[in-house]
């Protein structure tokens, strides 16, 4: 038997094939699209109802989020307590989830209880009434929660950053306590009726999506429901980026400062997007990234620092975020700038680049943990009007992109002087 050489890493294989499960599609006569992913050993299912948000109205900025959040607060048949009782009794989970582009209703249930829980969802989606008393409770509680969030530097930094990049739009919205007061039941009902209708609805089923389950969903959501007199206007006003680039909100007793630095950016639909994700990963997209290696692992200025790219329907962003010791905030910003510029001026070392490539492919494979993840990947594509060849391009780009190409991209897209910089705490 040979002696074990612990200094020598075992051999390894690259990730070759990423097999994405593609959905079955049905379109109901009422315009509602249904996509289903049938897989998995468990007798359970996740169903999402996705609705495009209505055009943002700066005078009534909270309608999209408030209508979505209050869907479970009462219908003409069931009050909030009855909805909660029914869902909880059957061990199901009914969630609402507001995003910048879409609002969702999500049901997790064991398939044996699907029919009963589906009826509750149908009621919620087609017949919510936003009772006055529940609205008052919602407003009061949201105002209190906002007060707590406003004491968190990272939350405040994110708000200032979004406002700077996007202005008075759905992406730039940072609610103030008085905005909640302006919510009225009438406005919410009108908004609900226009938004929650079949032609603005996409249903995504994942799990034990067998013919019986699909039949139940089809049957429940086919035919006439909602108010179809007024089409859902899901266009959005133009973005209004700020001229100012530097924002400092001082907190006298801060132990740490929140930093958020970045810029509006291309979205997933842009051909450069996959390559930029490689560049972003090198800079701050994983634990071994340059920002982490320098600012956490070498300098010890922070518990964590990272960079990321967001992609929405109308815009995207590239950003760097961290919370750093208040006394080293200026130094941390200097190091961030330094790391950005190094990527513009120097080629990425081949060894580092191949590591990042392998890491990203492994992470993609690992992100496909179960059938829900396959549905999530589909949503990334579908709501960006992309096809499955996007993931082919993505994996191909990761495998083939070169250091000189990445350097070109860094110079094309990154200009630190032009980035928005937000500091909340001490600087």
């Amino acid at each position: 038997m040979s002696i074990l050489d612990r200094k020598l890493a075992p051999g390894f294989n690259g990730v070759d094939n990423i097999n994405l499960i593609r959905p079955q599609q049905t379109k109901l006569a009422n315009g509602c699209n249904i996509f289903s992913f049938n897989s998995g050993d468990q007798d359970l299912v996740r169903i999402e109802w996705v609705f495009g948000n209505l055009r943002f109205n700066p005078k009534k900025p909270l309608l999209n989020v408030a209508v979505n959040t209050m869907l479970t607060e009462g219908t003409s048949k069931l009050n909030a307590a009855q909805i909660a009782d029914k869902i909880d009794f059957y061990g199901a989970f009914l969630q609402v989830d507001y995003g910048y582009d879409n609002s969702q209703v999500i049901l997790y249930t064991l398939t044996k209880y699907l029919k009963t829980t589906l009826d509750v969802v149908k009621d919620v989606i087609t017949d919510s009434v936003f009772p006055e008393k529940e609205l008052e409770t919602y407003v009061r509680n949201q105002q209190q929660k906002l007060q707590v969030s406003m004491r968190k530097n990272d939350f405040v930094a994110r708000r200032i950053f979004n406002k700077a990049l996007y202005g008075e739009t759905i992406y730039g919205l940072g609610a103030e306590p008085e905005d909640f007061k302006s919510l009225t039941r009438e406005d919410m009902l009108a908004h609900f009726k226009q938004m929650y209708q079949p032609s603005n609805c996409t249903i995504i089923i994942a799990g034990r999506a067998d013919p019986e389950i699909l039949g139940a969903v089809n049957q429940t959501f086919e035919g006439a429901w909602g108010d179809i007199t007024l089409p859902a206007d899901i266009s959005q006003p133009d973005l209004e980026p700020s001229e100012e680039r530097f924002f400092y909100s001082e907190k006298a007793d801060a132990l740490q400062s929140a930093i958020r630095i970045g810029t509006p950016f291309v979205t997933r639909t842009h051909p450069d997007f996959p390559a930029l994700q490689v560049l972003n990963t090198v800079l701050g997209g994983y634990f071994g990234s340059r920002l982490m290696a320098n600012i956490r692992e070498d300098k010890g200025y922070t518990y964590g620092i990272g960079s990321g790219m967001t992609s929405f329907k109308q815009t995207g962003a590239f950003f760097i975020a961290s919370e750093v010791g208040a006394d080293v905030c200026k130094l941390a910003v200097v190091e961030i700038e330094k790391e950005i510029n190094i990527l513009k001026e120097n080629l990425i070392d081949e060894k580092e680049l191949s590591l990042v490539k392998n890491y990203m492919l492994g992470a993609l494979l690992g992100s496909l943990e179960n059938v829900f993840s396959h549905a999530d990947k589909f949503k990334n594509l579908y709501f960006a009007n992309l096809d499955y060849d996007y993931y082919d391009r993505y994996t191909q780009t990761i495998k083939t992109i070169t250091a000189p190409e990445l350097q070109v991209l860094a110079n094309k897209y990154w200009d630190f002087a032009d980035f928005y910089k937000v500091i909340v705490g001490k600087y």
Partner: protein
Amino acid sequence: MVKFNKFKLDNGLRVIVHEDNTTPMAVLNILYDVGARDEDPEQTGFAHLFEHLMFGGSVNIPHYDGPLQRVGGENNAFTSNDITNYYITLPSTNVETAFWLESDRMLSLAFSEKSLEVQRNVVIEEFKQRYLNQPYGDVWLKLRPMVYKSHPYRWATIGKTIKHIEDAKIEDVKAFFKKHYNPQNAIMVIGGDVKTEEVKRLAEKWFGPIPAGEKYNRDLPQEAPQHEERREIVTAKVPLNDVYIAFQMEGRMDKSYHTIELMSDILSRGNSSRLYKSLVKDKQLFSEVHAYITGSMDKGMFVLEGKPLEGISIEQAEESLWQELEKIKTEEVPADELTKVKNKTESTLVFSEMSLLDKAMNLANYELMGDADEFNHETEKFLAVTSAQIKEQANKLFRKENSSTLIYLAEGVEEPKAVVTE
């Protein structure tokens, strides 16, 4: 039902294999039977600081993360008052890399001064970020010493004070490693697209040669029953008042555990729960209210927490919480309501089987408690709970002389300064 195979190496390392061929990935999870409760009262936060140092290179491998990322893997770890848990996920074809990395750091660390210096700073920033620079972030630093007077649960995982972290020396790190990081004190779970025979071969190859080390015999001062009401009021720079009431309860292995967990669900799980319906919705006294248990191995905490609405006095808020507790002490939980929380628990366990990592962590945890197979019998234990048992436990727990109440009073702070631009 999570199937698994189990074996033990000669050096005492317990190994569990869960074959799941629905995924191309593998998970390697190692639980070390050491947590903040095993720390010296004068060197708190050490188990967690040590967890950070486990990423600072091992005796034969200078960098831990790079070689793993190179084969498409990711890793992380967490420390609790009871355990320290490390996990790797990676494409299953590269699973041997995980064995290589984990076995080398179980064999010995590099013990570098630079790594200690940097991780001390990182942990101090973590201390600030999570405990000091957040509204209510210091609640566990205050509540734990109220509930525990002798047991080491009286300090939080992060430590009692930043000073203890600043003072950590490399000799302490070495001694801690020797005492706790050896095969006898670890449980390894490998899950995913793997075969038991191959796992056996790799485990023998990489972990087999590691010396067994000394067995750590835990002998902690147990917490005496509480006989007096405890109370503390702090004025803090927080936006809203906040009420915490903690009760001592038996540890995770006690037969009362499942009853008490369902009791916390009845009070606070979901929008159909009692506290939410009664105190947030009907009486409109709180903006939010929660009940939960810590699930500790030794004597644990049952915690009630609520933020009263503006204009509601602390007395009124506390009184309303106690009214709900009185109700569960005096009236048996109706059958429907009990069925509801049982159904929810049952479906939660089914959903948790969707995640490979969750399954691996659960198997390790149940093995630590005595037998990994108990994970497959959890549902039965919850289903067996009766209303009479809940009432009995409510009476045992919810007594003033078993309570520790911590009140945050919002200090009138200045309005945040306006955003200025340069």
